Every structure is written in structure tokens, then in C-alpha cells.
């Protein structure tokens, strides 16, 4: 390790008005090394990254104390970034210290070409002419492994996929060969296979250019893969700092211990037939407590009538183009999907964007009309149901959505929201009985009865998701469809909600259709798993079969892409090729239906048909 850090942050404090969001933070990052800053929402990690760039000023925040020392080289030349004028700082931004942001879909200016946006930096800092800047831009795009770089320069951001945009973003950040790269959650919004690509590219380029990288993330898996040094933040303060192996092997601070305990680790369930409910590690004050016990989730009743049977389900959307609205293309969201869910069972639908997993959920809940196929509830086909029976279905199937902020009416008390399904379906009469039921439901999901009169904005994200669960439980459902219901939550909250969902399954015999892109969470809580790709099931089987002996190439690719929260398992990855394919096809160009073949008892996998290449 070089002895001179590239950047050292000393006793940094940042205020939003009188609110101190970063407190007395110190850390260092060395050339060629990565310091990861991890923390949950509200930990101040993103503000820290913007403070280093001195961009907090544009968010009405200010650096109140401390210094950020930038060492241009090993001999002396040190600048305190907090003391520089904005003009001097502009010479450093984008040249010596560059930044990559979280949302690749919104990080590029939609009205300028990729070429304009990359050359802009080169012309500004490196005194390039337009022509030489374009030549350099082509080199940069090749550096981030983008093919057909020349043509890309003339394209606009909306014409590129999320993964390609993030690579363009990296090319732009690296344009002037910065000494320090600040990456704020650069892969959070991406699918796992694309995340794996981006992480590989970032690590390769770091080695090539010898950059110091400050990597901000909430994902312990990514930390384990990328970091040399780890800084754990909580409520604006550093609670622990250590080398990556040290943090994972011997976390010192109770918060770090609780955080690591909450992280689902892919492969942790190897060899187990059933999902397992793990005890929760909770932090009370500064001491960790363990709550609950470890027990097998043996709740699935496989010998009775299934709750849901889906047979050859097809859902397509027409895309109309032009003024006279002719159908030119179709989204083949769901193609020939079949599965069943039994009482007390959790079936997970996993897949990347465009795999059709959410559309399946919506089709089952009758929020979306199917194109063809049969859906049966309790043995009866929905198509044959009367209006009253369909209404009853709405009661028996409940939905929990991804965004707990958007799925509760902000102008109604949470008690009202929970009572709504009870009133709609006439399950209870009399306000006293309803009131009692609300109290009982709130306590069931771990909140207290006196919170019924409050409004959604008074609750945290995790509490809101609990309220959504209480609302779902209110109508005594048989099946709950959880569509990415854990994705927006911090890991510690996620662990609590998983715990709650498993407890409810045990007590009420609920069946879950668990829609998720997160393989580690799926491994933890499902009985069976269906892997989806472009609207078709490529593999279906028990959790153990799919995770321990994945058969289809796409399943293996998906599993290999997941970062594992264990630095000792760090692998030298080969760069995963290919982008996420689109389910949009021309009218008449029907996709070939995959044939599922039984590879073991209850384990089915698609045969890779000739000419149908799923994995490039």
C-alpha cells in the first residue's frame, strides 16, 4: 500500500440548515484501492459523496467543519477542497475527482447525444478540439467494453439500455483519468447480470488506471466484492472502519453485527429442503439481541387442492404506432406460463426486467386481462366465475407492492386504509367490531393499536410496509402476491419483514406468490422457484433443486451474477456478455415456446432449442 492517501477526509461535518447529517467523519482512500462507505437510508453516505465533490452546496447544504485533503501526487502537493473557491473547484471536478451516480436512466441529459456529453468534459478540461475529443471518446467507450463505439456517439440516451447508459457514465467519469472516483450506488438500479458486468468493468479499469475509488453502497454483497477498506455509517456517523475481511469476519460494533446478520447470503441454505426462519438480530441501544428461534418452514400442504393453478397463461400488450394507430409490435410479457401454488406454500417468481414476473402477478389478481390460458382458484376457472365469485377472489387474493410510500393514501389514516377491505367486502359490521379488528391487525404486524389514527407520512418505510401487510391481512386472504415487496427496504427492515411474512404463513397458512429479482432473499423464504426469462419459465422446481443444481444456462448465469456477502469467496469473474433482451416483437414474429423437461423429481428445465439463444 502506498503511504500517501489520494484523498483524506478529516472530521467532516455537513449541515442541512441546523440539521447535522454528517458528523465528524474521517476516512482515507489510497491510489488503486477502494474504500466502501456502507450504511442504510439516512446514514449520510450519499451526502458524504456530494460533499467530496463540493456539490452539497447545490442542495442547500453546507460543509460546516473539517477538511477534505486531496493529494495530487506522492510528494506534497495537497489541496483542502473545503477551502477552494468554486472556480478552483470546477477545475478539479470531472478532471481529478469524478463521480458516477446511482440512476443511469436519469444521469444522462436526454436532449444531447452520447458523443456531445463525453466530448464536453474533454474539451473543457483537456483542451481537446472537437475532432480529437471525438476520437478520444471512441477510445473511452471501447474502454468500458461498448461495441460499435463510433455509432454510439451519435445516439441519444433513451436509445440505450440501463446497463449501456451506466457504462457511458463510467466512460464520461474516466475521460480525464481522474485520481479519485466517487461512485454513489452505481449498480443499485441495475439487474444482477448487468450489475456484475459493471462491477467487473469498474474493477478492471481501477487496476488499469490506478484510481482511488470511494464506493458508496447499501449492498453488503457488493462491498464484499469490491472493497479493500470499509467504513460503516449510521445516522451520519462512522460506527466502524476496518479492512474488508476484518469487517465480515469480526465485526466489532453491534450495529455492524446486526447489519451483517440481516444480510441474506446466497448459498447459505445449501442442502436444506425447506426455507428456514432465522432468529432476528436486533439492535437495542448499543447491544444486540436475538429474537425468535431457527425453525424449518414446513407449512406447504401439497396434498390438497392448490390455491391457484395457472395453465398456459399468455399476456401480450399491443404497441400502436403512427396517427392511425395500427398495431406494429407486441410486448410478449407472459408466454405460455404454467404453475400451481398450494396452501401454505411460497412460490417465487424470479427474473430480470422484462421477464414478465409482475405481469403474471397482476394477471392473477385480475388487474390485467390475459390474452389466453386458464387461471383456476380452488379448482374453479376464473372464466367460469360469476360476478360475485370474482368479487370474492378480490378478497381472497391480496397484493403488497414495492413502494410502501405510494401504496397508502396520504390523506387517510392508516386505520381507514386497513378498514377499507373489511368494509368493501362486508366482512364485519359495526364500527366497534371493525375497530377491534384494526387494533388486532396492527398488533399482528408489530405495530401498536394506538397508531391507527395516524397518517402514512408519520411512519417509516418499514412501518408502512407493515401497514400494507395489515391491510392485506384484513380481508383474510388465501394468497398474497408480494411484488418486489422487500426491494425498497433497508436490509435490517427487510429481515424483519421476511420474519413477519414467514410467521404469518406459519400461523394463517397463507400462500405467497413472491415476485423478486433478489436471488438471496428468494433462497431464504421460498418453497419453490420459477425462473422467468422473456415471459417464459426456463426452470421450475423446489428451491433446493433450483439453487443447488441449477439446470438451465440462464439460471446459472443469474446465480453466478449475484454478489456474495463474503470477501473470502471473492471470485475473479469473467465479464458477462450481453444485454437484457427485449420482450417486444414485431407482429407475426411469435416467440418459440420453450418445452419444459423433467430433469429430476419435480424439477423442470427448458431445453435450449436450436436457434433460440438465451445466453450469449
Amino acid at each position, binding site marked *: 500500500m502506498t503511504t500517501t492517501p489520494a484523498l483524506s477526509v478529516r472530521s467532516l461535518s455537513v449541515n442541512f440548515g441546523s440539521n447535522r447529517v454528517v458528523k465528524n467523519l474521517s476516512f482515507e482512500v489510497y491510489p488503486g484501492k477502494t474504500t466502501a462507505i456502507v450504511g442504510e437510508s439516512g446514514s449520510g453516505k450519499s451526502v458524504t459523496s456530494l460533499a467530496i465533490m463540493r456539490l452539497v452546496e447545490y442542495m442547500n447544504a453546507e460543509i460546516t467543519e473539517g477538511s477534505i485533503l486531496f493529494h495530487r501526487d506522492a510528494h506534497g502537493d495537497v489541496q483542502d477542497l473545503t477551502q477552494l473557491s468554486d472556480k478552483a473547484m470546477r477545475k478539479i471536478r470531472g478532471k481529478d475527482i469524478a*463521480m458516477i451516480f446511482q440512476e443511469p436512466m436519469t444521469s444522462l441529459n436526454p436532449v*444531447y447525444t452520447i458523443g456531445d456529453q463525453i466530448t464536453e468534459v474533454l474539451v473543457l478540461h483537456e483542451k481537446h478540439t472537437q475532432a480529437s475529443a471525438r476520437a478520444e471518446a471512441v477510445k473511452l467507450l471501447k474502454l468500458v467494453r461498448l461495441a460499435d463505439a463510433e455509432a454510439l456517439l451519435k445516439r441519444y440516451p433513451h436509445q440505450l439500455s440501463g446497463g449501456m447508459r451506466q457504462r457511458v457514465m463510467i466512460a*464520461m467519469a474516466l475521460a480525464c483519468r481522474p485520481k479519485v472516483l466517487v461512485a454513489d450506488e452505481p449498480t443499485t438500479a441495475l439487474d444482477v447480470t448487468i450489475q456484475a458486468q459493471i462491477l467487473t468493468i469498474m474493477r478492471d479499469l481501477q487496476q488499469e488506471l490506478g484510481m482511488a475509488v470511494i464506493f458508496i453502497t447499501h449492498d453488503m454483497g457488493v462491498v464484499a466484492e469490491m472493497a479493500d477498506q470499509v467504513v460503516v455509517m449510521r445516522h451520519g456517523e462512522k460506527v466502524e472502519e476496518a479492512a474488508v475481511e476484518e469487517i465480515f469476519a469480526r465485526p466489532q460494533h453491534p450495529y455492524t453485527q446486526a447489519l451483517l446478520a440481516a444480510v441474506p447470503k446466497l448459498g447459505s441454505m445449501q442442502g436444506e429442503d425447506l426455507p428456514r426462519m432465522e432468529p432476528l438480530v436486533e439492535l437495542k441501544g448499543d447491544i444486540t439481541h436475538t429474537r425468535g428461534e431457527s425453525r424449518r418452514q414446513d407449512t406447504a400442504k401439497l396434498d390438497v387442492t392448490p390455491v391457484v393453478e395457472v395453465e398456459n397463461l399468455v399476456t401480450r400488450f399491443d404497441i400502436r404506432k403512427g396517427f392511425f394507430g395500427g398495431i406494429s409490435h407486441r410486448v410478449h410479457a407472459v408466454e405460455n406460463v404454467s404453475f400451481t401454488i398450494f396452501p401454505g406454500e411460497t412460490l417465487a417468481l424470479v427474473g430480470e426486467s422484462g421477464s414478465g414476473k409482475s405481469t403474471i402477478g397482476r394477471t392473477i389478481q385480475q388487474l390485467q386481462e390475459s390474452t389466453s390460458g386458464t387461471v383456476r382458484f380452488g379448482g374453479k376457472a376464473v372464466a367460469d366465475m360469476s360476478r360475485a365469485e370474482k368479487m370474492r377472489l378480490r378478497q381472497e387474493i391480496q397484493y403488497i407492492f414495492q413502494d410502501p410510500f405510494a401504496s397508502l393514501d396520504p390523506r387517510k389514516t392508516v386505520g381507514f386504509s386497513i378498514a377499507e377491505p373489511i368494509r368493501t367486502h362486508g366482512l364485519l359490521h359495526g364500527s366497534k367490531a371493525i375497530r377491534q379488528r384494526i387494533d388486532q391487525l396492527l398488533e399482528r404486524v408489530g405495530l401498536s393499536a394506538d397508531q391507527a389514527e395516524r397518517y402514512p407520512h408519520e411512519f417509516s418505510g418499514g412501518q408502512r410496509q407493515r401497514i400494507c401487510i395489515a391491510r392485506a391481512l384484513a380481508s383474510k386472504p388465501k394468497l398474497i402476491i408480494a411484488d418486489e415487496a422487500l426491494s425498497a427496504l433497508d436490509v435490517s427492515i427487510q429481515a424483519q419483514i421476511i420474519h413477519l411474512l414467514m410467521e404469518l404463513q406459519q400461523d394463517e397458512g397463507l400462500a405467497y406468490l413472491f415476485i423478486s429479482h433478489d436471488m438471496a432473499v428468494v433462497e431464504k423464504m421460498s418453497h419453490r422457484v420459477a425462473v422467468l426469462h422473456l415471459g417464459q419459465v426456463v426452470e421450475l422446481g423446489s428451491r433446493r433443486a433450483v439453487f443447488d443444481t441449477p439446470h438451465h444456462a440462464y439460471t446459472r448465469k443469474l446465480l453466478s451474477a449475484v454478489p456474495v456477502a463474503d470477501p473470502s469467496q471473492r471470485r475473479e469473474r469473467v465479464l458477462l456478455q450481453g444485454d437484457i433482451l427485449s420482450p417486444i416483437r414485431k407482429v407475426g414474429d411469435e416467440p418459440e415456446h420453450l418445452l419444459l423437461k423433467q430433469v429430476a423429481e419435480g424439477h423442470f428445465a427448458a431445453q435450449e432449442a436450436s436457434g433460440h439463444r438465451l445466453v450469449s
Partner: protein
Amino acid sequence: MAKFLLYRVLQAIFVVIAVTLIVSFAIRLTGDPAVMLAQGAGSITEADLNRIREALGLNQSFLAQYIGFLRGLVVGDFGRSFMGGTPVSDLIGRALPATLALAFASLFVSIVVSIPLGIKAAVSRGRWPDQMIRVFSLIGLSFPNFWLAIMLVLLLSITFNLLPPSGMEGFSSFIMPAATMGIILTATNVRLVRTTMLDTLRSQYIMVARAKGLSNTVVLYKHALRNCSIPLITYFGLQFGGLLGGIVVVERVFNWPGLGTLAFEAVSARDYPVLQGVITVLSLMIISINLLVDIAYGLVDPRVRKE
């Protein structure tokens, strides 16, 4: 593109027919042009009035008159004014440039002033420049345009004798009418620019642009402004239509020889051909502005471009 143009032409034909039909019908309910023409000519008999009506073609049914107007339109003939028999196209030909010049001058002034002010207000949100700009725009909004026009004339022409009070002669005659229209437009536009700018400044790509080390001016005027332009262009386009309507009042006060004055006089005199001609030209102009707005969308935002 061909489909698009065809669609637009069909739309234009429909709009012109609908607007002229309503206007021609309504104006015929308000009074008899023959009586207006005969006024002050001493003793007039019903036979005299009938002769005038026959000469003007008013003895035909409304439908026949209207179809006659449409026929003329196809060959570019708007007919002749009832008052003096001048071809309507000559009258419009003289008035249209005056109105267009005034409308464009007002809109231009307003855009050039409101964009920098709106941006300034947005970046200094909540601080004093923002407050000042907002207060002034509120004051601007509160003036009725006829009052503002009369005050300007009284002050600048009568009291200080700096500018010509009326007519269209040279650059100086543009200042007061354009300022009257411009102040009110600017007041609204500043607020619109401020709001759209605030939205745009929250975007991630603005932070990315700053992180590149670009100067404030480049960030605001290159990266942010072009992203604001879709709502702005839409609004400016709509405003142009409103402007043509509002211009009647201002043209009256400054005695501006434009379409507004022409239409006003035509209504007073029940001069059907002139009124129908002016309305037709105005609707065509609004349709073409809308077309320009659509084309401009594609120019500023690649996501709108088709094919």
C-alpha cells in the same frame, strides 16, 4: 411525415370551416348591414333596402351565402367589403403585417426578458432575487392591458412627448404597444420559466453536469434550458393565439392599423365579408403556429422524433 401533413391539412380545413360557420352565423343575428349602409341617407324605403340587400347578395339563404364564401375561399377570393367595395384580401394584406409585427415583437421581448429572469428566480429560490422577481411579476399580472396602454400614452406621449401616441410609423411607434403586451406576457412567462426550471434543476443529469466541472452558465443555459423547452414552447404557442385575441384592445388604444382594428370595424359595420376573411386568416395563423410548435418539439427533444 406525409401522413402527418395530410392529417394537419384535414385538421386545418375542419377548424376553418367550424370557426367561420359559427362566426358568419352569429354576426347575421346582430343586425342588418343594409340598414347600417343606408343610415344618414335621408328617407329610405323598404324597397331601397331590398335593393341594397340584393346588391350585396343578402337576399339569398344563409347556407347559399356561406357556400358562396367557401367557394371564393378555394380560389383565394374573400369577396369585397360592404363598405366601399375594396377587395377583402387587400384590406387583410395591409393589416396582417402590422399585427404580425406587433405580435412577434411582444412575444420576442417577453421571451428574451422572461428566460433569464425565470432562471435567476429558480436558482435563487426563496432568496431575495427570487422574491423580487415574483413580486414584480405579480404586479405585472395585475395590470389590465387597456389601463396600462392608456397610462403609457398619457405619460410618455402627452406629458413627456417622447413617443408617438398612435399609428405605426417607424421603430418608436412599436415601443409602447409592444411593451403593453410584453409586460403582461412576461409576468406569466417568468413564473412558467421558474417552475419548469426548478423541476429540471432537480434532475440527476444537472448534478452530473456540475460534477463534470462545467460552469454555472453552461449548466443552466446548455443542460437545463433545453430540457425546459418542451413546456415552454407549448405555452408560448398557446400564448400566441391568446395574443392575437388580446391585440384587438391594444390596437384600438394605439390606433394600430392591424387585423384587430379591421375586425373591430367590421363587426360595428356588420361587414360580413371582412369579418369572415379576418377570422379565416386568424385561424390559419393559429393552426400554423401549432404546426411550428410540433416541429419545434422534434428539434429540441430527440425523444419526440419519430422514425
